[in-house]
């Protein structure tokens, strides 16, 4: 294991060292000490590395991740795992707004709560939040799944495309074109698999499913009041 202390090295030093593993991987396990909320830690990874960040991370931690497994032993700032393509990002604490924004793949697990716009414009990532999510979560979600074990804030799934949303707790309000849908057997199976992947013990039958009503997929003047 390679240990890098961010009080002794810069984020640039760290990221370059991690990026250098993209070709021939010589060190698979990494430990980052004293991050102290610095931004852009471990972004742009492109190798099956295991990166443990021992403390709080700032904005865009693990942004655009590919293949790597990043664990933040603390809270994460805005846009954690934004535009992730594959791999896993796990936040042991809470995540700020726009967690997993636009992410195309991989798995994002937030063991605490997530702020506003969690999963905004998500394009295939699976996001599991053990706590609550803030308002406008999954706004314009295109693909993938958002699982919320706690409560969801206002306007959940506004202008949703094809993301699957599962919420165990309450939903303060649904956004435009987002509706509650029947929880069929295949959805129980999907949710069970998601919870297992995330290592979260919850009863999948206790969740409700939400999805797009698909009424706003094509602009119609009759729907003007919904926009």
């Amino acid at each position, binding site marked *: 294991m390679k240990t890098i202390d961010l009080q002794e090295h810069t*984020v*640039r030093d760290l*990221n*370059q060292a991690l*990026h250098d593993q993209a070709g021939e991987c010589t060190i698979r396990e990494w430990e980052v000490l004293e991050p102290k909320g610095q*931004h*852009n830690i471990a*972004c*742009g990874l*492109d190798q099956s590395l295991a990166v443990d960040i021992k403390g709080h991370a*700032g*904005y*865009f931690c693990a*942004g*655009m991740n*590919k293949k790597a497994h990043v664990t933040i032993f603390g809270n994460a700032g*805005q*846009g954690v795992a*934004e*535009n992730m*393509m594959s791999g896993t990002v796990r936040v042991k604490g809470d995540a700020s707004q*726009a967690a997993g*924004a*636009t992410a*195309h793949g991989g798995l994002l697990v937030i063991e605490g709560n997530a702020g506003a*716009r969690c999963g*905004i*414009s998500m*394009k*295939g990532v699976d996001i599991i939040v053990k706590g609550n999510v803030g308002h406008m979560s999954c*706004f*314009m979600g*295109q*693909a993938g799944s958002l699982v919320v074990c706690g409560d969801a804030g206002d306007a959940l799934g506004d*202008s949703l*495309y*094809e993301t699957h949303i599962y919420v165990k707790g309450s939903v303060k309000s649904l956004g435009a074109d987002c509706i509650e849908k029947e929880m069929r057997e295949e959805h129980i199976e999907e949710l069970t698999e998601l919870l297992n992947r995330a290592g979260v013990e919850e009863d999948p039958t206790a969740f409700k499913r939400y999805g797009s009503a698909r009424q706003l*997929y*094509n*602009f119609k*003047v009759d729907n003007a009041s919904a926009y």
Partner: protein
Amino acid sequence: MSEDINVKDGLRESATFDRTTMTEIRRAAETGIYDIRGFGAKRKLPHFDDLLFLGASMSRYPLEGYREKCNTSVTLGSRFAKKPIVIDIPVTIAGMSFGALSANAKEALGRGASIMGTSTTTGDGGMTPEERGQSSKLVYQYLPSRYGMNPDDLRKADAIEVVLGQGAKPGGGGMLLGQKITDRVAKMRTLPMGVDQRSACRHPDWTGPDDLAIKIQELREITDWQVPIYIKVGATRTYYDVKLAVKAGADVIVVDGMQGGTAATQDVFIEHVGIPTLAAIPQAVQALQEMGMHRKVQLIVSGGIRNGADVAKCMALGADAVAIGTAALVALGCNHPKYDEEFKQIGSAAGFYDDYHEGKDPAGISTQNPDLMKRLDPVEAGRKLANYLNVLTLEAQTLARACGKNDLRNLEPEDLVALTVESAAMARVPLAGTSWVPGQKY
């Protein structure tokens, strides 16, 4: 106002309610929905035609047009990037998406730009292999929708352009209507076929200039600080926007005036939001100069650039380069008269066609229809674009030499005068024959 063909009969058309206005009122009354179209602002605006160059005579020394060199190359992104882009001519191709444009059109843009040693730019929807393959210098747009956005393509790019807005619709997002969403376009954007694809008007994971500074750092980290990062803004509060863009860490700033084109938005947006390109340049240059960053952070200007005179005037006002979109499409064959009959069949006419969003372009450019797309030969169209870019460059050089300049970037506001009070005030150059710059002490 439309041509008054009935004046001989004693009839008089209203300047306020002319035929175009009345037609739009009737259309709105019939449909109940605003007009969506492509192209840029069609209203008459103060523009580069309102400026003239003061050629050399007794007080200035001209350069020989056919003998003495006039440099046209420009380095973009020298502030932070390890690998700035060097373009051979100061005319680049603006961002236009695959989806809005056919794959052949995108390939042709890449081919034409590469022949002339300049850059082209992706658009909403991501990077296609054809475009990357044919573009020797490719700028990758980073847009609010992040359709097709991935780190592999980001690292393949020669520069990254963070798009905050465009001149045709500053403050607005985009829409690619379902009729243009083929299987390939849908897959690249991770959306079902046939669905209207809304492009967000603001980025999903940052909200202000301080956040943007961190976002730019993220992009630099992911690309190991190799490539330049541009920030593109639609021209509105340009002075302040440019200052904030510099503060956020841009290598290059792109300012797109309201004559800049779009693939689709509301007509009311195109015609009533933003400021003319002419008015935006001095604001941008002032902001850069006050920060000591003029020529250090390069300025690219777009919106209504049509000929070498426009290029030279932009550069005289302080731009480092220009970008063209609409003019490049016209060079490829957009609105070509040979398709006039077919334009009429879809309710338009050659030279007037702007319904790019409908995907029925007879010229095969703003369409995803396979039969129409085949009409555009990317090799021939690319050659035409290269010819056109060459003419723009030769014309700009001609004017620069006449002003005694051996580099296009040596042109300066002192070389210009204005024909109208409005253009003098906007461009901050004297009204021709006077020393009067409206709004400034004299």
